[in-house]
């Protein structure tokens, strides 16, 4: 194998042709890199925004989620009978359940006294709710009536609650017109649907929202025993429960919410269009560069043909130029993209990061861009007439 490698080894013509004019190469790479960064940012924003719609969804300590089939999304939840959740306990793989009430209530900013809609979650304070191990300690405070945990990552419009709380002040305000006291802070984060969150006991929740039908919940968390297959359990629960309840896996719950925002907003379209623009701009630049590269070297290609080189070999040189451009343009785009993600993450709290799927996607797009341009440039090469060079 090694010997055949040495036999097949050739002068790296593609590389030498590309680097012959460093300035032109630099322009080409800048163009590809720019297109790559543009695609990284647009796709990153798109995914990041969709991820932002499920910031709270991701925090639940659960394997399966029960929901009403009439629920549309986090901003349009319907209730279902709590006993459906209790029925799941009959399944041998179910370890525990948590009933959650989920609704939007009006929060009064204690500083400005203006009101704003906040997502309120109600649950039994002794049941597990979030994956955060410190949470259950904080939840103890909710056993007293009229106490709430406030999400410190909520937007500022809800008032300077975190600052006041840390200063040791007693914070009392109105939620849905009823008096509550802030008993602690949690870190959840705002999402598409909710600018802020609060967590309270089921008892307090029902007190704040007396119109909630008795025995009705919006979300049922189902934790499974170690080693059980959540999609299998979901399947068997779906078969055994009546169809007034929907059984989703944890991922299914997240996807359900994301899908709502994907289909009901133009976020996906706008940012995919942005990425497509990057692709087009990059393609035009690479095509220009490769085309003029082939045109400039046409007499040299014709000489090689006259010497007995096959057209296929020469087309291979152009193809290799395309691949080289793709790789050399992608690397800086990847590095810059990762850096910009970190910058956006810290400055906007948008959950945006380099994920391998997107990294591969952008590379494939860049490769496609370069190879497509190389293919177009090859048409010029096919026209080269070796008889013209004498």
């Amino acid at each position, binding site marked *: 194998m090694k010997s055949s490698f040495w*036999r097949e080894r050739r*002068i790296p013509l593609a590389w030498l042709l590309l*680097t012959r004019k460093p300035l032109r190469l630099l322009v080409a790479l800048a163009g590809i890199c720019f297109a790559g960064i543009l695609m990284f940012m647009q796709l990153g924003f798109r995914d990041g925004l969709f991820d932002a719609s499920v910031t709270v969804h991701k925090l639940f300590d659960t394997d399966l989620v029960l929901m009403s089939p009439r629920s549309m999304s986090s901003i349009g939840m319907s209730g279902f009978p709590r006993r459906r959740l209790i029925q799941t306990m009959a399944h041998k793989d179910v370890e525990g359940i948590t009933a959650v009430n989920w609704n939007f209530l009006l929060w009064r900013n204690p500083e400005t006294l203006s009101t704003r809609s906040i997502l309120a979650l109600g649950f039994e304070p002794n049941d597990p709710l979030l994956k955060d191990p410190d949470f259950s300690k904080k939840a103890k405070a909710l056993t007293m009536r009229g106490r709430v945990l406030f999400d410190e990552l909520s937007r500022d419009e809800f008032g300077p609650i975190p600052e006041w709380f840390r200063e040791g002040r007693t914070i009392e305000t109105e939620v849905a017109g009823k008096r509550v006291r802030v008993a602690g802070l949690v870190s959840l984060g705002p999402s598409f649907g909710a600018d802020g969150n609060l967590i309270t006991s089921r008892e307090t929740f029902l007190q704040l929202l007396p119109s909630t039908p008795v025995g009705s919940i919006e979300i049922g968390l189902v934790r499974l025993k170690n080693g059980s297959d959540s999609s299998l359990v979901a399947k068997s629960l779906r078969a055994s429960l009546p169809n007034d309840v929907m059984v989703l896996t944890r991922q299914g719950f997240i996807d359900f919410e994301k899908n709502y925002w994907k289909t009901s907003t133009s976020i996906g379209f706008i940012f995919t269009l942005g990425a497509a623009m990057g692709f087009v701009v990059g393609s035009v630049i690479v095509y220009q560069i490769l085309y003029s590269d082939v045109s400039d070297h046409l*007499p040299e290609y014709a000489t090689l*043909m006259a010497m*007995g080189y096959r057209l296929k070999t020469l087309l291979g040189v152009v193809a290799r130029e395309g691949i080289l451009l793709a790789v050399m343009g992608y690397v800086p785009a990847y590095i810059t993209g990762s850096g910009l993600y970190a910058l956006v993450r810290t400055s906007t709290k948008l959950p945006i990061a380099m994920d391998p799927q997107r990294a591969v996607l952008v590379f494939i797009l860049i490769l496609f861009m370069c190879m497509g341009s190389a293919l177009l440039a090859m048409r010029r090469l096919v026209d080269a007439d070796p*008889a013209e060079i*004498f």
Partner: protein
Amino acid sequence: MSFSVMKNKTYKDESKLAVEIDQLSHWFGKASTRRKVLDNISMKISTGEVVLLTGPSGCGKTTLLTLIGALRKVEEGSISVFGHQLRDSSRRTRQKLRRQIGMIFQGHNLLQCLTSEQNVQMGADLIKGLSYRSRRDQSREWLRVVGLEDHMVKLPHDLSGGQKQRVAIARALAARPKLLLADEPTSALDSVTGREVVDLLKKLALKNSCAVLMVTHDPRILDVADRVLQMEDGRLLNSTT
């Protein structure tokens, strides 16, 4: 598939024949602008022979060379190179045959992005079954033979006209051709350098038993030839030995 002379034996006593042309005519242009540039040409070149082709500008010398070099399609008459008929040959056959034919152009036509050594190696790379190292060593050897051992890593840009033409000769010979076609290889050179280049070409061609067909305007180099062919207006006038 090899292009050995023995294979495809169409000649009985003339197995040493490199080129045989029979009643070759060629036209350029279409319809009303169609013009005959080669008119009923017949000639033979044996291996090891150095043949010069002269004639006024526009008489069709380059056209004849490109036809022999399998760079153009033969329209009328026949050309056979090492026993291979070029008329109606496939593109692949012509491309393979070109590997047996070394070409030296009026302009040196070196690859600008390659050093002398790499340019010569583009010729050596056409030889099948040699390792990269031996192809490289051979290329260096050829450059030494043409007297450019001190200029191996220079780009064409940094070479003089005569040096470039010598690189082109080394490149053509590195592919071990059995036929060398040269179109005014000395026209860009002064007379002394031109003479040197032609002498070198002849010496190397003889040593490697390679037939040479060279187009030239330069009367001072006619004496290197075994034969001088005169062309005028697309016709071959005489052949002097």
